[in-house]
């Protein structure tokens, strides 16, 4: 029996979403003068056409009076979902008006791809896209990533307030944030510091690589945003390989790794609690996955004979592996080569890395190393139970940043649920692709579907500007499902259904 949400609930959600949309739209509006400075008048007006109404509506939305601002779990989840979708709608407008998208669905696809930190793009003629719109793409990634982290923390606050509302092992709000206000600020300071270092470092590396001063700022921002938020939008065709610079690639690797590390670990690093980090289970799995995918990729590349010498194998192997595991989706080689030239083992390792993704509580996607680890622990402990003499019982535990947690059935069940949902998403996406175009190979379809639901963004040439509308729609939904970890979407749908049919 569904209880219909109260009017209060709806108002609270609109109000909360409005704040998010406001911040986002202001950012877009600020890009308009930048566009004018760059001499892109049409882009400036396009940005304003999108941002202005959104700002207006958001301001009005914030004025809605509510009796309680209590942040319950349901409200938070539904707010998150609506905010994401609303922001994507706002961003889609200037993109569509730029004329670089075949249809509205393609523009919306790119917008969703940006705010969910995926990185797939249906943009036509990227190399002639107005630079301010390139900045728009970066802004989407930064806003989406920051919002994702922030939402996670808010939910954690809510969790402390309502201890029973989140079952252990459920989605956002998983990670530990030691301390409140002060800790929060310290974390944001850490992230900001990393970001600035990244910008400076990448900027210098790019200029050394020969990028002219005029295009340096935008290229730097674009790449840093793409790497640090694990998004993956590139400023020009040709991927990262276009710069032919090991230093640039190295810096981006560092940023990607940071982007996929959970906020909790970053906070602990800021406080120099290295022991806690080392023992943290999620972190251990993260490191393990990186190592495994790296090994698999390099061995696979060597076997396939893709590159002649050890150094290129290492260079491209490391970058691809990190880009996959962190679900960034940047690549140093032309996308199509993943299917045609990388052999079989390397793509298999990369797909596995993409599906698992980075740490929970970071900006990366995938079903997260924590869930992977919990599932594995659950399976292993079940196997060991088989071998115990009758009557023996053992308690399995795991470390979460200095705190010992017990592995419960609920943890395993929840992890398995998410994994299953991801797999279903991959199958559904692949089926839709195969239905649309019988010429697509199974590998390409599976890889693209995994990339979408894992918010990776590795383009192998399957998703092209001229795609059928149902393919675009399906993949847009997959990206949203992946970012909101499915349950967010279900909550939102349930909310709407409850309004329509529920009894008070």
């Amino acid at each position, binding site marked *: 029996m*569904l*209880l219909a*949400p109260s009017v209060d609930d709806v108002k609270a959600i609109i109000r909360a979403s409005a704040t998010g949309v406001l911040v986002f739209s202001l950012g877009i509006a600020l890009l308009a003068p930048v566009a004018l400075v760059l001499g892109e008048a049409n882009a400036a007006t396009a940005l304003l056409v999108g941002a202005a109404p959104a700002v207006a509506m958001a301001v009005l939305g914030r004025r809605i009076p509510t009796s309680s601002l209590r942040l*319950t*779990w*349901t409200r938070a*989840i539904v707010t998150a979902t609506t905010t994401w979708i609303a922001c994507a709608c706002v961003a889609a407008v200037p993109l569509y008006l730029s004329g670089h998208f075949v249809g509205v669905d393609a523009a919306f696809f790119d917008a969703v791809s940006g705010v969910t930190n995926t990185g797939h793009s249906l943009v036509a003629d990227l190399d002639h896209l107005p630079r301010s719109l390139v900045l728009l793409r970066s802004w989407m990634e930064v806003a989406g990533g920051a919002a994702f982290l922030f939402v996670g923390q808010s939910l954690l606050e809510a969790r402390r307030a*309502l201890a*029973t*509302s989140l*079952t252990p092992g459920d989605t956002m709000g998983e990670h530990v944030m030691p301390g409140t206000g002060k800790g929060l600020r310290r974390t944001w300071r850490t992230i900001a510091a990393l970001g600035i270092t990244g910008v400076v470092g990448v900027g210098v590396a790019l200029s050394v690589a020969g990028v002219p001063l005029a295009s340096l700022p935008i290229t730097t921002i674009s790449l840093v945003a793409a790497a640090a938020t694990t998004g993956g939008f590139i400023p020009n065709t040709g991927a990262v390989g276009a710069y032919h610079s090991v230093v640039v690639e190295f810096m981006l690797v560092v940023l990607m790794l940071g982007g996929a590390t959970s906020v909790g670990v970053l906070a602990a690093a800021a406080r120099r609690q290295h022991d806690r980090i080392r023992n943290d289970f999620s972190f251990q799995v993260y490191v393990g996955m990186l190592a495994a995918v790296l090994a698999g990729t390099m061995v696979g590349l060597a076997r396939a004979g893709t590159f002649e010498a050890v150094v290129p194998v290492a260079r491209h192997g490391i970058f691809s592996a990190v880009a996959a595991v962190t679900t960034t989706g940047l690549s140093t080689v032309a996308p199509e080569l993943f299917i045609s030239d990388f052999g*079989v*083992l390397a793509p*298999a390792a990369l797909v596995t890395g993409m599906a698992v993704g980075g740490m929970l509580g970071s900006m990366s996607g995938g079903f997260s190393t924590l869930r992977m680890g919990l*599932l594995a622990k*659950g*399976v292993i402990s*079940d*196997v*060991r139970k*088989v*071998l*115990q*003499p*009758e009557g023996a019982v053992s308690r399995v535990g795991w470390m979460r940043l200095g705190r010992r947690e017990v592995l*419960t*059935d*609920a943890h*395993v*069940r*929840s992890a*398995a*649920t998410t*994994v*299953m*949902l991801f*797999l279903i998403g991959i*199958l559904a996406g*692949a*089926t839709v692709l*195969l*239905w649309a175009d*019988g010429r697509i190979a*199974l*590998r390409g379809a599976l890889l693209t579907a995994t990339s979408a639901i894992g918010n990776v963004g590795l383009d192998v040439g399957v998703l092209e500007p001229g795609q059928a509308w149902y393919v675009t729609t399906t993949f847009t939904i997959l990206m949203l499902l992946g970012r909101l970890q499915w*349950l*967010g979407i*279900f*909550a939102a*749908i*349930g*909310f709407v*259904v*409850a309004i329509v049919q529920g009894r008070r």
Partner: protein
Amino acid sequence: MIFRPDREDLKVIGHYLGIITMSLTAVMVVPLLVAIATWEPDDVTALLIGMAVAIGLGQFLRTRLRTTRELEWSHGLVTVALAWILATMVTAIPLYLSGHFSSYFDATFDAMSGYTTSGLSLLQDLDHLSAPMNLLRHLTHLAGGQGIVVAVLTIMTSAGSQISTLYVGEGRDDRIVPSIIQTARFIWVVTAFYAVVGTTALWITARLAGFSDGRALFHAFNIFIAAFDTGGFTPNSTSMAYYHSAPMETVVLVLMIAGTLSFGMHYMLWRRRTREAALNLELRSLATTMTMTAMIVVFGLVRAGTFDSVDNLYRKGIMTLVSAHTGTGFAFNAGALYESDWGLIAPAGIVIAMALGGMASSTAGGMKAMRVGLAAKSLARDIRRSIMPDAAVVMSGYTGKRRQVLRDGVVRPAVTILVLYMMMYLGGAAVGVFYGFDLTTALFESTSAAANVGLTSGLLAPDNPLPLKTVYWVQMWLGRLEFMAAFALIGWTWALLRARV
């Protein structure tokens, strides 16, 4: 550590293995009689050698390893795991001597495939295989399907408490009636009933299809076993397509579904508890997934332009789908056609159906409908929980033998095994791809082996590299045992080696 096996443990296991080995003569005796009746001297001597080894080895183990220690759960698991391997190796002897296998390993492959009711085969020149050997292959389905263990236990009436451990090790974990012996006997009665009815029906349809009396009986009996035990061996190389007979296919359809129903379900139907049956989670899960995959297959075939008439879609598409989902593995067209003629979506539907499998506690393989159903219910509960207002407590229930609450404690083992199966499917596919085969065929073959189905896309051949064949061999074994017994064996052996007994 965990186990500390000592000599007495070894004896217990060895003793029961001896009993099971001796019972293998039952599998070989009927083909022997046929071989004598039709006078095929080489088959007679081959089967005699097999039986002699079975009796000699089995009797030796049984006598020499007499012990007073009782059979515990861990013993049971290890015994079952080893029983499959031992039965395979002994039955492979007459098969190897038939001359139709290029190596003894290939013969063990077919024997393992037979006992695990898979149906994959490395036999060469099946169309010229003698009748006794053909019969032997099919009888392995019967023995393996009804459970080597259960079969032995009805013959031997040992102390009641010891037996349940062996039965649970099989991968069946619901007792139908309180006493294990009675459960085993019930299984035999049901089998006998279906055998009489099924063989007769098939015999009639075979006669109508154009077979002579004797040949009709031969085919009817063999096809009955392969259908009801969801095995998949057939007397000829083109599987069910050999008969070109819609009536025969209809009877087979009924038998396949009967074969995939758990014996608990048979019991319910026997006792006319139809309402209970309709509420049963497994049955509903199976019906749902079968409908969904059937739709995928039909749409896929239509999209690819393979078939456009309802009759064709039914006789080739749906029949193959049911064969796949029930874990039987009868083919209704050449395996190469899945790749060359069926597009990509329809074979994908087949692979999914194979992966999901039939009901638990039946001869079917795969993840099993019970687990799929529990996982789906758990998923639904999670979704409902994310919709409900925060203070509400969401309870979910399901109907097994009786109405039960869905607890995490039940969901977790189901999900664990689901994951293990998934890893096995993907792992086997990875090995296939490693050896240069296409991803689609590798995935198809791996799932077919691990879920004990037996449909082949043409990948499996006698000239495959040995590691690849071994992987499929192990997959069939692991799939049948549903992992736990196999893990128990591995853990136990490890402990044994460390204890240096």
